[in-house]
């Protein structure tokens, strides 16, 4: 639950009065152009940047202290983070598991690694993995931390910062399906997303940030409108529906006629 969240970095207001509530059992995708404030929103929620407003998780206000209690309810997938020293993939995943409620269940490591398709790689030095493998390795660590989507203190949460950014098509789908099934089992997922198609396919609701403000929030079929997307991305788009499955497809047109005044604003801000 995020209420009236504002973040100022220097003189610039990066986020202004964002109020947003993620629900358990739901995958909420946060979308928006580069610099719209997506990552800042996540950082503010994770207390990595100072912010005004109130944040709460499962009814308890977040802020100052009790990192251990939070770690049992919430796991975070960073965009990419380097690992110092030659920890193996298994050791990294075990760190996540032990930070959660599953210290006594070492089998979770293997299950989490299998879930992201890295079984058999347990002994590999984490730093020797490819970019996509590292991202999946970190996802396995986050999954192991909140292995059961619902715990004794309520639903557990996954906070994903561009979870599919450096993955190939097959793994993008696989990772989104993992997030989907985490939510289906009662957990909550908050994901910063660039890929609108994947967001529309997998998320219950999408939130669009434009220039630090929440411009739209709702089910994909309601919020994915051509005017909103042009406002958000400064680029004319044509929306279409895939008849069989229902998700939205976005042939994009950023030609000379496409970038309107909002596009120039986005570049200048």
């Amino acid at each position, binding site marked *: 639950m995020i209420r009236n969240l504002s973040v100022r970095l220097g003189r610039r207001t990066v986020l202004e009065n964002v109020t947003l509530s993620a629900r358990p059992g739901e995958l909420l995708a946060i979308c928006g152009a580069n610099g719209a404030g997506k990552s800042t929103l996540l950082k503010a929620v*994770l*207390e*990595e940047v100072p912010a005004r407003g109130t944040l709460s998780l499962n009814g308890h206000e977040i802020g100052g*202290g009790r*990192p*251990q*209690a*939070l*770690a*049992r309810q*919430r*796991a*975070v997938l*960073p965009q990419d*983070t*380097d*690992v*110092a*020293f*030659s*920890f*193996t993939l*298994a*050791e*990294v995943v*075990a*760190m*996540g598991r*032990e*930070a959660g409620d599953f210290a006594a269940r*070492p*089998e979770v*490591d*293997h299950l989490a690694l299998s879930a992201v398709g890295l079984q058999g790689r*347990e*002994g590999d*030095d984490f*730093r*020797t993995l490819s970019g996509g493998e590292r991202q999946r390795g970190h996802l396995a660590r986050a999954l192991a*931390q909140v292995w059961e989507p619902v715990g004794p203190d309520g639903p557990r949460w996954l906070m994903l910062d561009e979870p599919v950014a450096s993955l190939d098509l097959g793994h993008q789908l696989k990772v989104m399906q993992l997030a989907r099934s985490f939510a289906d089992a009662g957990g909550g997922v908050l994901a910063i997303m660039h890929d609108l198609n994947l967001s529309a396919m997998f998320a219950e609701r999408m939130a669009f940030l434009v220039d630090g403000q929440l411009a739209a929030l709702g089910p994909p079929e309601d919020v994915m409108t051509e005017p909103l997307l042009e406002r958000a991305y400064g680029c004319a788009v044509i929306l279409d529906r895939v008849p069989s499955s229902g998700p939205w497809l976005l042939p994009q047109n950023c030609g000379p006629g496409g970038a309107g005044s909002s596009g120039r604003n986005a570049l200048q801000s």
Partner: protein
Amino acid sequence: MLSLTRPLVPDRRPSRAMVSLVLTLFVFAASLISLTSGAAGLGLTDLLAAFLGEGLSPRDQVVLYDIRLPRLALGLAVGAALAVCGTLLQGLFRNPLADPGIVGVSAGAGLGAVLAIVLGGLLPIGIASGLGPSLVSLAAGFGGWIATLLLYRIATSGKRTDVALMLLAGIALSALAGAATGVLTYVADDRQLRDLTFWSMGSLAGATWTKLAVTLPLIGVTLAVAPRLARGLNALALGEAQAAHMGVDVQRLKRLAILCAAAGTGAAVAVSGGIGFVGLVVPHLLRQAQGPDHRRLIPHAALLGAGLLVLADVVSRTIVAPAELPIGILTALFGAPVFLWMLLHNSLLRGR
């Protein structure tokens, strides 16, 4: 369906129990060698006799209980402290090149020692004679602690300590302390020059139970607290933000690790002078042998550091007997090539 009760890691690393056993035996052997070698000619049979309760000659008793035993205890404590502090700092800075020198302990302690050696004579006679030879140790210890605490304050704003800033400020502060040390060296007379040169090369000579009574509690606290930081340091390998999301109170971890390192290294440097490379090389060797998990790294570093320093001390007092070669020369002589060899052969280069 696979049912697994232990991690499915095709682990080529030796088990924790195995490494612990080997290192314990190593420390035991080093201690035995240390107790039975030296100028006085007290050998293994005499030691056995002493253990069995058969009387030693009064002279041998003095050699064993007042010279070799305190020296052994000091060697074990200093070696363990230097190695554990090096491990803590490498973990904290997420950098395998960190060593106690990096938080200004060495430079501060050096300045303190030189101050005491060169200007100690200016103190009122009562204080100077009251403190006697421990003046240099005290000054070194305080110098080291002051430098570290100063750095910690510089790098901490609000509730957050900037580790990178601490590293850079440490370089500046070390240079400053070096300059001050240089000035004092310039004005020192010949006898003082000799004293401060030997201090900077380190020695376990002059170990007494009194010195130990001051040093051991500080080192003991360090060795007791360090293992509790292991899980936090592991998580810190993924970065401060991720460590926090994995339930680590990062600021508390930094504060404890820095204070621990300052207490342990300060105490060690105060009684033994400048002994380099133990804090740098020991954690490296162990990471090569058994992986970077701090839960094993910290206790094993204590054992390996203790054993290695005791062995180095044996060499230092037998190689040019009846004189003594300063132990800092030996640790550098063996540590530096080992370190270079590791640099060329392992993950330091391969793994960024």
